[in-house]
C-alpha cells in the first residue's frame, strides 16, 4: 500500500477549508427560521439539483455500489440505472405537487393531508430512526476515506468529519447545507469521472475495458440467461428485476430528497432542479459502473497484485490493516490506488468526504426540523421551541451528530447494514401515504397509520430473519426472501434484494385499509388530491 503523498493531503485540506468557508459565509444570509429550515425557499435549479444529487447518494453509493458491481457482476449495472431513472420519475409524481404545497417539514404533508396532527409523531419516529442510521453510516464513510486514502487514524477521521459538518449545519442551516451540498456534488462527480476515465485510458477505451474485464473475470458480463451467472444473487431474472426496483422509487419518497423540493424558488425550479440532478448523477453513476467493473482487474494487476493475485484476499488484507468496515468497503479505494496517481487519489478522498458529509448534513436538516418545529413547537407546545427555533434546531443538529459520532466510534456491522433496511422501510412505511395521498382520493388516515405502524417492525423482522446467520435463526443474507425456508424449503429459493417485496406489500396494505375505512374530510382531499396534482 502506498504511503500518503502531498497531493492527497493538499486536496483534502483544501476541500475542508472550502466547505468551512462556504458554511461560514452562508450564515450571513440566515435571517429567519424559514431560512434555517428551507433556505428561505430561494435555492435555484442548479444548486438544488446538485444538492439533491450529493444528499441522495450516500457513501453507500460511492463505496457500496462499485463493490456490488465487483461481486454481482454486470447485471448490477441495471440497479444503478434504475436509481438514476427514479430521479425524473419523482418530478411529476411528488416533487411538483409538494413544491406547490410548500410545507416546511417532511411531516407537514402527512399531518395536513390526513388531517391528523399525531402523524407528526409516527412519521417523525420512522424518519429519526432512518436519520440516526444514515448519519452514522455517513460519519463512518467520511472516516473510511480519510483512513484508507489519507491515512488519517479512524478516530481522528470521525471526529474531524463530524465537527466540520456540525460547523456548517449550525452556522447556516439549510442555506449552508444547500451550497455545500452543491459543491460536494460537483466534487464527487469529478472525482469519480477522473478515476473512471483514467481506468478507461489505461485499459484502451471502452472495448479494451470490456475485453480486459472479461479476460480477468470471464463470468462478469454474463446474465441469468448465460450458463454461469456472475453470482448467486444476480443469478436469476427475478433477482435482477428485484435489484432494479429496490431503490428505484427512493428519490420520490425519501425525506432528505423530499425536503429539497421545498427549498426551491417555485415549481418550475423544482422540476428543473431534477434535470440537473439527473445530469450529474447519471455521469457519476456511469463512472462508478466502470470503476466497479474494473475493480477486480485493477486490484489484481496493480502494485498490490501480481501473478496469481486474488482481489478478495488483497481487500481482506486492507481490512485487516485498517480494522474498519468490511473488505468490500475498500474495493473502490484499492482500484483507484492501483492507478498510482496521488492527484487522482486526492480528488477521490475529497469526493468521498463530499458524498458522506452531504448525506449526513441532509439528514440532520430533516430531523432538526421535525424535532424542533413539529415535535417541540407544534406538538409539545414548547415556548422555547416557538421563541428560539434556530437555537433549538442547532442544538438538535449537534445532538444527532454526536449520537452518530458515538455509534461510529465502534460501529457494529449490523448498524451499518441497517441503513439499507432504513431506506426500504421509509419507502414501504411512509411512501404509500405520500404518493397515494396525492394521487388517490380514497387514501385514508387509518391506512396511513396502519402502513407506518405495521411495515416498520414487519420489515425489520423480515430483514433480520433473512440477514442473520443460520445459527442465529436467519437465512444468511438480506437478499434472501425471509420466508424461503418456510415456503420453498430452500433458503436461497427466491432472491429479493433488500426485501424489495416490502414496497408492494406496503402499497397493497395501504390500498386495502383505505378501501375498508372512512376517507378523510372532503376539504383535505380537494386540496391535496385535486389542487396540488392539477397541472403539475
Amino acid at each position, binding site marked *: 500500500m502506498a504511503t500518503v503523498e502531498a497531493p492527497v493531503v493538499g486536496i483534502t485540506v483544501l476541500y475542508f477549508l472550502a466547505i468551512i468557508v462556504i458554511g461560514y459565509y452562508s450564515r450571513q444570509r440566515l435571517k429567519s427560521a424559514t431560512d434555517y429550515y428551507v433556505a428561505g425557499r430561494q435555492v435555484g435549479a442548479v444548486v438544488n439539483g446538485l444538492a439533491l444529487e450529493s444528499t441522495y447518494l450516500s457513501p453507500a453509493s460511492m463505496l457500496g455500489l462499485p463493490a456490488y458491481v465487483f461481486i454481482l457482476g454486470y447485471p448490477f449495472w441495471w440497479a444503478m440505472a434504475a436509481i438514476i*431513472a427514479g430521479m*425524473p*420519475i419523482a418530478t*411529476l409524481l411528488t416533487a411538483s405537487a409538494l413544491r406547490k404545497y410548500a410545507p416546511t417539514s417532511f411531516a407537514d404533508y402527512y399531518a395536513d393531508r390526513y388531517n391528523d396532527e399525531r402523524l407528526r409523531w409516527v412519521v417523525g419516529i420512522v424518519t429519526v430512526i432512518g436519520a440516526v442510521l444514515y448519519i452514522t453510516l455517513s460519519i463512518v464513510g467520511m472516516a473510511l476515506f480519510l483512513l484508507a486514502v489519507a491515512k488519517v487514524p479512524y478516530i481522528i477521521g470521525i471526529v474531524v468529519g463530524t465537527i466540520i459538518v456540525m460547523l456548517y449545519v449550525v452556522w447556516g442551516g439549510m442555506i449552508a447545507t444547500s451550497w455545500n451540498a452543491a459543491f460536494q456534488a460537483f466534487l464527487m462527480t469529478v472525482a469519480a469521472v477522473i478515476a473512471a476515465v483514467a481506468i478507461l485510458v489505461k485499459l484502451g477505451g471502452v472495448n479494451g475495458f470490456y475485453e480486459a474485464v472479461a479476460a480477468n473475470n470471464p463470468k462478469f458480463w454474463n446474465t441469468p440467461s448465460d450458463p454461469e451467472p456472475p453470482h448467486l444473487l444476480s443469478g436469476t431474472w427475478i433477482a435482477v428485476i428485484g435489484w432494479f426496483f429496490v431503490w428505484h422509487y427512493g428519490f420520490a419518497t425519501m425525506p432528505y430528497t423530499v425536503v429539497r423540493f421545498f427549498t426551491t424558488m417555485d415549481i*418550475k425550479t423544482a422540476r428543473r432542479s431534477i434535470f440537473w*440532478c*439527473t445530469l450529474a448523477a447519471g455521469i457519476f*453513476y456511469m463512472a462508478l459502473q466502470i470503476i466497479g467493473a474494473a475493480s477486480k482487474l485493477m486490484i489484481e494487476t496493480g502494485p498490490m497484485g501480481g501473478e496469481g493475485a486474488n482481489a478478495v484476499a488483497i481487500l481482506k488484507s486492507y481490512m485487516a490493516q485498517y480494522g474498519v468496515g468490511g473488505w468490500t468497503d475498500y474495493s473502490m479505494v484499492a482500484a483507484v490506488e492501483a492507478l498510482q496517481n496521488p492527484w487522482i487519489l486526492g480528488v477521490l478522498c475529497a469526493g468521498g468526504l463530499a458524498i458522506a458529509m452531504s448525506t449526513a448534513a441532509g439528514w440532520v436538516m430533516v430531523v432538526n426540523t421535525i424535532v424542533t418545529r413539529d415535535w417541540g413547537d407544534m406538538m409539545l407546545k414548547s415556548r422555547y421551541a416557538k421563541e428560539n427555533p434556530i437555537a433549538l434546531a442547532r442544538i438538535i443538529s449537534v445532538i444527532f451528530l454526536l449520537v452518530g459520532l458515538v455509534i461510529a466510534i465502534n460501529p457494529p456491522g449490523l448498524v451499518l447494514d441497517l441503513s439499507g433496511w432504513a431506506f426500504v422501510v421509509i419507502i414501504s412505511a411512509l411512501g404509500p401515504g405520500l404518493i397515494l395521498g396525492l*394521487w388517490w382520493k380514497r387514501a385514508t388516515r387509518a391506512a396511513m397509520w396502519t402502513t407506518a405502524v405495521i411495515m416498520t417492525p414487519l420489515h425489520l423482522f423480515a430483514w433480520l430473519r433473512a440477514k442473520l446467520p443460520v445459527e442465529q435463526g436467519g437465512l444468511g443474507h438480506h437478499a434472501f426472501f425471509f420466508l424461503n425456508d418456510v415456503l420453498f424449503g430452500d433458503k436461497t429459493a427466491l432472491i429479493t434484494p433488500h426485501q424489495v417485496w416490502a414496497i408492494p406489500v406496503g402499497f397493497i396494505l395501504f390500498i386495502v385499509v383505505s378501501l375498508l375505512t372512512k376517507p378523510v374530510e372532503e376539504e383535505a382531499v380537494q386540496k391535496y388530491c385535486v389542487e396540488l396534482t392539477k*397541472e403539475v
Partner: protein
Amino acid sequence: MPWPPKVFWVGVVVYYGFTALCWIAEATAGINHIVGLPFWYAAFLGSFVIPLVMSVIYFYFPEKAEEARGGA
C-alpha cells in the same frame, strides 16, 4: 380521480420498455457478449441519456402547458 399527465407515462413507458427490450435481447441474442455493447446500452443510454431525456420532457412540456394557459 387525479392522474399524472400524459408526458409522465410517455417517460415511464420509454424507460421500462427500453430496459425490458435490453433484457430480452440479452436473454435471447446474448447482446451482453458483444464487445463494449453493455456499456453503451446499460450505462450510457440506461443510466444517463434516457433518464436525462425523461427529466427534460418532464420540465419542458409542463412549462409549455403553463405558457399556453397564460401562466408563468
